[in-house]
């Protein structure tokens, strides 16, 4: 495994403890997060929406809409392929208009294998104030996301954070 610097950043002990304080595998929580993802996908007319935490070496999908194939089987992706890793590291909304033309993402196997190419994500804060994950939509077409899109997704992320706080470990 390479990408050691990325894993070290994502695996900071304080951040991982913030994530570990949540009951992430609770089935009721997962169902509610699926519903939020479905709502965001519908409102933003996007084929895929995710609620995820980014662990030290992988993105763990907690709630989703439109996910299939190996991503569904694994319930996540390697951290270095996850678009949400960029949102977590930025600590603010992160947007990709066209991953097939963006030098930062053009070689990303996740985009190449899934056929997805545009992304909008907003960060999720943990109880301890750490950026623990992201709520996002991903589209199969080149897409310029609007301020309204961002507002809808931010509203979804606020719902996610309230839910997560209601499920302590």
């Amino acid at each position, binding site marked *: 495994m390479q990408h050691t610097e990325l894993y070290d950043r994502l695996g900071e002990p304080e951040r991982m403890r913030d994530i570990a*304080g949540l009951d992430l595998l609770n089935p009721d929580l997962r169902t509610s997060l699926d519903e939020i993802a479905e709502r965001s996908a519908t409102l933003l007319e996007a084929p895929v929406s995710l609620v995820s935490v980014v662990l030290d070496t992988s993105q763990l999908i907690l709630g989703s809409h439109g996910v299939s194939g190996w991503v569904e089987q694994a319930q996540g992706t390697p951290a270095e392929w996850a678009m949400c890793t960029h949102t977590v590291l930025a600590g603010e909304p992160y947007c990709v208009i066209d991953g097939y033309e963006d030098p930062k993402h053009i070689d990303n196997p996740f985009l190449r294998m899934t056929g997805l190419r545009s992304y909008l994500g907003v960060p999720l804060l943990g109880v301890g104030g750490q950026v623990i994950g992201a709520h996002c939509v991903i589209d199969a077409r080149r897409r310029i996301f609007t301020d309204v899109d961002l507002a809808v997704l931010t509203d979804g992320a606020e719902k996610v954070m309230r839910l997560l706080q209601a499920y302590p470990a």
Partner: protein
Amino acid sequence: MSNDAPYGLNRPTADDARAAVLRVHGDNGPQIWEQLVRAAGSDTSLDRLLPAMAAADPTTRLCALALRIRVTTHTELAAAQLTIARS
């Protein structure tokens, strides 16, 4: 593209598990790793370590979850490539 490393993704190893535990636990990492090795018994392969990690403290459990995602991703993509190569 190698079936061993589809899209450049290697299957995680016990060394990766050790690196994860040391990373997320800071100064306590070496002690926690020793406990995991003892729990895994004489066979310290990743397949034996992952159950021990999944039964450990909450932060170590997250490392196990992350490694399992990588294992499953690797397995799925390697199988898909094998299918393509045979067709």
